[in-house]
Each structure stands twice: as C-alpha cells, then as structure tokens.
C-alpha cells in the first residue's frame, strides 16, 4: 500500500468510525402492515376482541412482542399465539377493554432477518 494511502487511512478511518456512530438512527420498517383490523386511528363503538395485522413479509411469529397502553398509562405485554396458519398474519387476542385511546405497539422479525417496530392507535367509545 503506498505511503499516501497509509497516512490518510488512520485519521480517515477514525473519523469514518465516528461518522458511523453518529448515524445510528438509520432503520426503516422492512416488514410493513398492509392491512389491519381495526385500522389505525379507528374510533370503535365497542371494544375489539382481537387485533389482526397482515404484513408484506412472512413473519417468524415466536419473536413477536406486543404491548397495549391506555392513554398515558404504562404499556402492558400482550401474549401472541404462534399458531396462526398464515405466515404473513398476526392475530392478537385482547382482554375486555374499557373506553379510551389505546396504542398497540408491536415488534416483529421477518423471515429474512429484519426486525420492525410499529404502532396502531384506536379509540374505544366516543372520540376525544
């Protein structure tokens, strides 16, 4: 390797490493929700018994994590059964819900190894 390269390499590589550290927010939703029930920002007269999400990718269901939060209260973990036959669908059963604004947050692993987070908000009862 010529001297010019070697002399440039040390500071440049150091700074490139810093740049790499400086941009850790790069992440995009690889597996996106194509369809959901209820839809995002839905206002429902009655509480749904379950939430269904259909993704654009096959999902490794056993790694799915779901939480549900009412308004600004602490989120509660929701169990997701792995038995759904369709590889691109998640059916999330819900406990009986009272009126209020709910945010369901999910984290899924696609079969190609990409991890995605997302959120779905819905209102039970009158819109606020």
């Amino acid at each position: 390797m010529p001297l010019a390269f070697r002399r440039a390499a040390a500071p440049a590589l150091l700074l490139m490493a810093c740049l790499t550290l400086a941009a850790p927010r790069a992440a995009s939703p690889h597996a996106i929700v194509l369809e959901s029930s209820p839809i995002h920002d839905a206002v429902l007269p009655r509480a749904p018994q379950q939430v269904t999400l259909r993704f654009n990718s096959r999902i490794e269901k056993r790694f799915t994590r779901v939480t549900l939060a009412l308004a600004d209260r602490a989120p509660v973990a929701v169990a997701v059964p792995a038995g759904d036959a369709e590889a691109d669908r998640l059916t999330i059963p819900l406990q009986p819900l009272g009126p209020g604004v709910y945010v369901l947050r999910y984290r899924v692993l696609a079969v190609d190894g990409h991890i995605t987070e997302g959120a779905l908000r819905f209102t039970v009862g009158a819109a606020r």
Partner: protein
Amino acid sequence: MTQLAGFLDVLLRGFGTVGLAAAVGGLVYLRLVLRPPAGAGGLVAAARGRALTLVAAGALLAAGAELLLLLLVHPWALAEDSGRWPLREFLATEFGLAGLGRVALSLALAAAARWVRRAPDRALGWAVALGLGFLLMANAAWLAHAVSRLHDRGPLMVGTVLHQLGAVVWVGGLLHLVGFVLLWRRAGGPAAEPLGVRVLARFSAVAIAGLILVLAPGLYLSISYVGGWGGLIGTGYGVMVLTKVALLGCALVLGGLNFLILRRADAGAGAIAARVPAFIEVEVGLGLTLLLAAASLTSLPPSVDVVADRATPAEVAARFRPAMPRLSSPPVGQLLAAAAPIDDTLAKRQPEEYAWSEYNHHAAGFFVFAMGLLALLDQSGRARWARHWPLGFLGLAAFLFVRNDPRAWPLGPAGFWESMVLPDVLQHRLVVLLVVALAVFEWMVRSARLTRPGGRLVFPLLCASGGALLLTHSHAMFNLKTEFLTEVSHAPMGLLGVVMAWGRWLEVRLPAADGRVPGWIWAACMTAIGLILLVYRET
C-alpha cells in the same frame, strides 16, 4: 434499540457483501483475469499470493460480519422483557440457519485459500475453493429479502443471487485489481512489465460480463419490487433504486474511460500508468458505495407494498421547487412549548418544528453554497484568497452546535454534560466534531500547512463516507410517506456527496492537467448540495 440494531444490520450486511466480493469475486479474478500458469514466478506469483490473501481476508470479513449479526445484533434487538437474549431460538430460524451456513462456508473458504496459496499448482485445492465460492453464493439466496416474500419466492431468490454474483464479480475484481496495480507499478509498470496491460484488458471483458449479470436480473428484480413509475418516484425504495442506477452510471463512465485508454493505439505506457490506477481506485469506491446502498435497499419495504403511503410525483416535485429560504426561525421557547415529546412516535409534528428544521437546513445551505462558490473561484485560479474556503466549515460547525438540539445547552434547559447522555445529542455533537475536522484538514492542505500526500485524501474519504451514510440513512419508522417526503432530498445530496468525494480523489491522484475537470466537477457538486439545502422544505 430496534433502530440502532437496524442501522448495524445494514452496515454488517454491507460489510458481509464486501467480504463476499473480495472472496468470491477474487476467485473469479484469479481464474479468469490473472490466470496464473503452473509454476509461474515473478509478478504473476506475487499477484496470485496477494489475491489469495485477499480472498481469505474477504471470507473472514463475511464470516465475522455474519457472526456479529447472529450472535450480537439480532439477539440483543430481540431481547425479552426479562432481558434474556433468545440466542438459541434465533439461531434455529431460517435466517439463523442460513447465516450459520454462511459462517461455516466462509471459514472453509478462508482455509481453502490458505491451502491453495501453499500449493498453488494442485488442482484439487482450486476445485475446493471454487466449490465453496459457488455454495456461498447459493447460500446468499436464503439471506436475501426474497426469502420472506409471499409470491414468486423461488424466481426472486434466483434473480437476487445472480444479481449479487454480477456485483461480486465486478466489485471484487476491482478490489483485486487495485492490489495488482500496486504490485505492477513496483515491478516497473507498463514499460517494464507488459503483462499488466493484458490483465487489465482481460478484466474489462470480465467486468462487462459481471455488469450484464448485474443489469439483467436487476431489471427483473426492479420490475418485481418497484412495480411502476409511481413506485420509482414516490417511495424510498424506488429512489434508492434510482440512486443505485446513477452510481452505476458513474462507475460505467470511468470503466469506459479505462477501456478506451487501454485500447487506444496511441496510448503509451505513461498514459496507462498515470490514469488507469486512479480510475480503478474511484471505481472501487463507487462499487463499495453501491454494495452499501444495496444493503440499505434490503431494509426498505419494496415499492409494490407501499400503496397508501406512496407520494405522488407532484408531491415529490414540490419538495424541490425553488422558494425563498427562511430568514427567521421561531423562538426556542415557542418551539419547546409546541413540540411533542421525543419518544412520542405517533405525534404529529407541529408547524414550529417544521419551521425550526427548515431554517436550520437553509442556514447550513448558505454555508455550503458559499463554500462551493469559493471552491469554484479557487479552481479558476483568479482569487488566491479563495483557497481558504474550508474555514466555512467552522461557521457551519458553530451553527450546528447551537441549533441542532434546542432542548440542550446553549438554547435548551438541559445542561451540556447532562444532555450528552441523550443519543441524539451525542450523535449531533460528534457530527459537529467531524465538520471541524473537515475544516482543519482541508484548510491545512489548501494553505500548504499539511503537505503529506495522504493528508489530501482525508477530505475525499470523509466526503465519500458521509455521502454513503446519507444514502444508507433513513428515519422512517412510523410515518412512511411523511418521512419519505422529508428525506427525499437526502438521496440527491448523498449522490452529489459521493461524486464530490471521488471527483476530489481524481483531482489529487491524476496528473495536474487531467485533474482539472474532476476539480471543477467536485466544486460544482458542493455548490449543488448547498443549493438543495437552500430550497429544502418539509411542508
């Protein structure tokens, strides 16, 4: 955590592909370009030894990147509420098993390359290495996005592998060619060792075949994943495909120039020695950027799936329509009162936040545009004082330091050290440090305070990595369309940053007379980046 893991995933997948290029591309280079005969000595034997070392290093890089993904990044990102990492379960998934396959094959290839280096005339060693290379490429099908598709999974997996094979042959061959050219120059260059010209000519033929392999399956994949013109222009995936095409176009221009230099009857040894190595270095840079951009592409949802969140051509065009830059910003108190908490991912951004961000971009654009104009003036040789243009980066750094984080010192309530624990603030301050470094290095070069040849390469290397990061950087997580429209100008700026970097590289590495045109090109690119920032808008 998921976002940081996603970024590391893109980087490690990119590094893995670079490793694959050095390893598998190196095998193709050895068999079809260098073609060392049995019992070869001299330059050929030295080049063969160097190439086999690079093949082993590439295989180890591919294995290391995959191991980090499998054992660290993904299990960490998938940690359970109890904090337990589900390592064993993750390794049992389709992706985990394919990843372990890549690790095993890569390590075996590294060992095989070492074996071939020790006994280069044994056909069995070459057969084993080539077989492992073939299996590594086939294994890549189970690590690609195609494996998770619901329809046309098989054809898409085959198309992806062929597309990757073309890229690996082309970029890997270029990497090896840089190593060869360094040895060739040491051996006396084209005047003393005509073999080098034959090697370069053979590589042109292999590179053309590699590019055909990139383009034909690439077209099929683009049609399948992008779907149409609307998806090409109105989604992050489509814009990234366009960026890859533009980068490939730049690399093809340089490859074409090399092709012409080597085939022109009047091209003497001097012309080849002076120009071809610099062009190859830049082709390598563009090729590596392409591999990183490809890794970033795999993290984006394909355009065909983005229907409701797709932007229209009119909405995209509106983001580039020239308008007067903002000359004032909302007061920081008003901004802080209106803005939603940072962690509220579903909150709608308020007008004050847009205004604050647009003003920041416009002011930064003013600095970059002014530096671009001064760099152009400096290129003209009519104003010697204009060579101090890098000092503009210091003004930019000071502005960014004050304005980047309105919640932190000196504008916001959080103190300097207190705010350092916030990831965003820490990142922004690191960027400020880098901008200062750019100013110092390039100003010292321009004012003859830094005369080492390597010092002149710091600026292009930093610009190249900055441009590549801009291309691989996306904030979109929850609001696809809004974030896409906010960041749609990042792709042209990243592309211009890459062209600027390698233009400056050529200016430094080519003979002074040949370096003038690239010199004008990079200064024009910097001016254009400033202009894009000046018309940047988020609403």
